[in-house]
């Protein structure tokens, strides 16, 4: 059974089509990179999967269930982690939010929850910051807290929206290495612009620009880029092909020169 199954999905906002005729089947334990231009509908797609938005047409099934029912087994790391900097909350309390279950309001198992939350922080190497106020942490540290919060939900599916925007290059490689470890038992979808970094770690690529193209290989070809980004490849990205292995330096073709 697929972890995510989307059939003939349309989504419009203010009478403008954001996503059109989207079909997608993502198998369990997949590690998908979602790429595409800004405003192409990547974040909208994540919010539809989370059940925060409802499609105009078509169906979404997460692990065989509609999103609203399945959302408690989805871990979500939002794009904007800088919201509410002065809010009176500590790192551990942010992570505990991942254990929130409104159905068990009266019988909260706070000791177990706290242990789970601390374990999630430990996994992200953030134990020392558990009782620090969230606003005093750096961007990268806050990112780790938010990922810990997503892990604390014990997710089957992990969605990350541009997670590396506040991490330096070395940190990014470590970060994707970590995601690859999580991928051993969690299906992962990550929105990213770092085409190069991504192709070394992910298993498949989904290109979103109103339409969706899914490729079950971690390859980004020039054709894909051309269809996804409505301008010439040189403007978008001077690289023609993204390959596995050691980092390469790929130069663009000379003009008017046939190979």
């Amino acid at each position, binding site marked *: 059974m697929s972890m995510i199954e989307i059939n003939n999905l349309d989504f419009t906002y203010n009478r403008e089509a954001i996503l059109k005729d989207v079909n997608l089947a993502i198998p369990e334990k997949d590690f998908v990179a979602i790429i595409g231009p800004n405003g192409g509908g990547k974040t909208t797609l994540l919010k539809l999967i*989370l*059940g*925060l938005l409802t499609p105009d047409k078509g169906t979404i099934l997460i692990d065989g269930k509609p999103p609203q029912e399945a*959302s*408690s087994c*989805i871990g*979500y790391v*939002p794009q904007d982690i800088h*919201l*509410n900097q*002065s*809010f*009176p*909350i*500590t790192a551990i*309390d*942010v992570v505990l*939010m*991942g254990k*929130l*279950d*409104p*159905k068990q*309001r009266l019988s*909260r198992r706070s000791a177990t929850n706290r242990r789970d939350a601390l374990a999630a922080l430990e996994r992200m190497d953030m134990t020392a910051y558990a*009782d620090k*106020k969230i606003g005093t942490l750096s961007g990268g540290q806050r990112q780790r807290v938010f990922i810990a*919060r997503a892990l604390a*939900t014990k997710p089957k599916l992990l969605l990350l929206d541009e997670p590396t925007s506040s991490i330096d290059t070395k940190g990014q490689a470590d970060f994707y290495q970590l995601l690859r470890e999580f991928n051993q038992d969690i299906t992962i979808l990550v929105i990213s612009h770092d085409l190069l970094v991504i192709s070394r770690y992910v298993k498949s690529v989904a290109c979103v620009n109103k339409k969706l193209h899914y490729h079950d290989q971690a390859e980004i070809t020039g054709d894909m880029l051309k269809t996804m980004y409505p301008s010439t490849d040189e403007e978008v990205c001077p690289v023609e092909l993204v390959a596995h292995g050691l980092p390469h330096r790929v130069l663009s073709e000379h003009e008017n020169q046939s190979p």
Partner: protein
Amino acid sequence: MIEALQFEFIRNALAAGLLASVICGIIGTLVVVNRIVFLSGGIAHAAYGGIGLASFFKWPYLPSTIGFSLFAAMLMASVSYKMKHRADTVIGVIWALGMAFGIILVDLTPGYNVDLMSYLFGSILAVPRSDLFFMAFIGIAMILLVTYYYQDLLAMSYDEEFAKIRGVPVKKLYFVLIGMLAVTVVLVIQVVGLILVIALLTIPPFMVEKYAKSLFQMMVASSLLGAAFTVTGLWLSYQYNLTSGASIILVAGVVFLFSLIVDKIRFACHRT
């Protein structure tokens, strides 16, 4: 101050001020972190429409004021929930309309009328015992409600999207919060006046927010700070024969400005 306590009206004023501090400390914390200060001001002013209705139609005072402000509050809540960024304009309109509506109705009422000044500044020195019990009841009901929904309110206030994903009934809870705000604001206004309610609702939570590590800490510290302002203000007003509500607000305002200056200096020291 000690000899002042032999007067019952001073004891009642003190009790009313302390109860208002606790209620405003709890609700004010939620108001400040959810950034609905403007909406609270809107509710408090629009409530005057209810006073107008009560005097014109000779309806009982409390039910009509609460009913009218709940109506106005729900209107504001639905606008602000749907379009967060444009809500302030609509709230401003309801704010002004409610107030004008009330004043016109009071004008049209023949005979002796409600005094606008007592609505603005209250009459903390003339609080009857029955009002104290009423406020205590409201305070306890609110503490129970906030305790029951604490985790949900925390998640909603910090990260509404994530709260929704976890299954928190965010929309329902938002309307409950605004409804609770409307009821408490109206009841406390009746005792200490609109201006003091707005001051107690915003100044202590804002000062405490930077130092508190949780909503609970922020609520407790805001209540204590509000209580300190109230006691100092009442003492000043007794000693120097000043208007009590205004004295309390002035104390709060001076301490607030002082804390801003201290923060600036600390920030400057940090940088060098």
